[in-house]
């Protein structure tokens, strides 16, 4: 056993019996050893007296912390936001002209009504008051990563299992849309989809109504020009997102899609 180990054990009161007696005898006879022990004791006093760092966070801040897979997105998130912003403006320009019809397949009235009926049978929607405080600052310009993070924050609320499942479906769909973003062929189309999630359903607090009873889809409208609007429905039933659209005047859409809040994204 070398001297360093002996002194360290002695310092910690771990030497006993004959080992201790031998060391104490050496300490009396060897000033250099005694000096090293005194230095170690001083070092120990300094170490033990190091002020404890005071944590600056609270339990609430921990609750609001995004999961690790959504952190570190700042650069990619900014890039994505910039891309989406560009696409959204391009789409707004495209739709705003009013003389170019959208290319997406329009949902039929029967399909829409069936979807709405099915959604209505699935139980209560997420209470708006549970979401309002969290979503109030989700305004235009938000990008999908921010939205995903916000939704993830909602996991910390005391939601029912059903509500939690709804949110999980929303998050899954956003993740799927992120994957779809990689392979998109028509940037204008995707920008509508992303915008419909990021803006339309949240801007006027229609989140729970746009995610009615079981949260099977998102819905939003976009101005096409000439008094006509596009309705976008994003199916949230799992698997690849199914995106259906319809268009018409607001009156026509309201009549056809009763229960959906229509929003002017002018």
């Amino acid at each position, binding site marked *: 056993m*070398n001297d*360093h*180990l002996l*002194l*360290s*054990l002695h*310092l*910690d009161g*771990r030497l006993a019996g004959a080992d201790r007696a031998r060391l104490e005898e050496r300490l009396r006879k060897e000033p250099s050893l005694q000096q*090293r022990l005194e*230095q*170690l004791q*001083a*070092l*120990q006093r*300094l*170490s*033990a*007296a*190091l*002020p*404890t*760092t*005071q*944590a*600056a*966070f*609270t*339990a*609430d*801040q*921990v*609750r609001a*912390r995004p*999961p*690790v897979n959504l952190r570190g997105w700042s650069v990619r998130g900014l890039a994505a936001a910039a891309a989406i912003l560009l696409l959204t403006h391009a789409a707004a320009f495209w739709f705003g002209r009013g003389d170019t019809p959208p290319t997406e397949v329009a949902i039929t009235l029967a399909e829409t009504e069936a979807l709405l009926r099915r959604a209505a049978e699935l139980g209560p929607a997420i209470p708006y008051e549970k979401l309002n405080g969290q979503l109030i600052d989700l305004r235009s310009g938000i990008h999908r990563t921010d939205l995903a993070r916000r939704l993830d924050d909602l996991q*910390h609320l*005391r939601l029912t299992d059903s509500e939690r499942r709804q949110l999980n479906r929303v998050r899954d769909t956003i993740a799927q849309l992120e994957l779809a973003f990689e392979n998109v062929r028509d940037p204008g189309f995707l920008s509508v989809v992303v915008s419909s999630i990021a803006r339309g359903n949240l801007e006027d607090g229609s989140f729970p109504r746009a995610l009615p009873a079981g949260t099977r889809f998102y819905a939003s409208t976009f101005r096409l020009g000439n008094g006509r609007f596009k309705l976008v429905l994003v199916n949230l039933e799992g698997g690849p997102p199914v995106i259906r659209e319809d268009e018409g005047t607001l009156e026509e859409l309201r009549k056809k899609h009763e229960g959906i809040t229509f929003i002017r994204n002018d």
Partner: protein
Amino acid sequence: MPGRVSPWMQAARESDATPAVPDEFLAARVAQGDGSAFDELVERWRDRVVDLARLMTGDRDQAEDIGQEVFFRLLRKPEAYDPTRPFRAWIRAVTRNLCLDGYRRRAARDKYQKRAAQQHQFGPAPLPSPAEQAVLSEAQEALRATVAALPRKFREVYVLCAVQGLSYEQASVVCGCGSKTVSTRLARARRKVLERMRKWL
């Protein structure tokens, strides 16, 4: 939820005879979704966790981040903690692992090196009054820097035993090695620290 107190916690606070609620019990309550138990655990442990992370990483901001991550993991995956084992060993082990995982290591290292370079360039900060306190503070900062520069296996036993006062056996649980290994590593760590801190002692 924040601000809400469970009936059992309320009873514990109102009764003078009630002993302190064990950490293990609180952790089990967290697994059942008890927000007030989580609040209590954060209150009890956040300083110690951040302090350990700061000593392990040498970076105050990173330590704060790791501290939040430790409790975040408890919140998100409370089942990761086995309530039959000591909570204090578990939370220190999680903290240690996060520190060692290289969690945002590059950013912290860059930041630390940048700061060290600035200190080297501009010299030590002027001593505030009283001077003795400043010298002590400077020695403490030197000690922090010295400990942070130790090799990992020496750093962790030094932090746990010499700074935080854990026994060899407790540190061995955190580090996942034998207590004899802890004692030899600690002796070597002390030797290394002593070599660099001699002028302050």
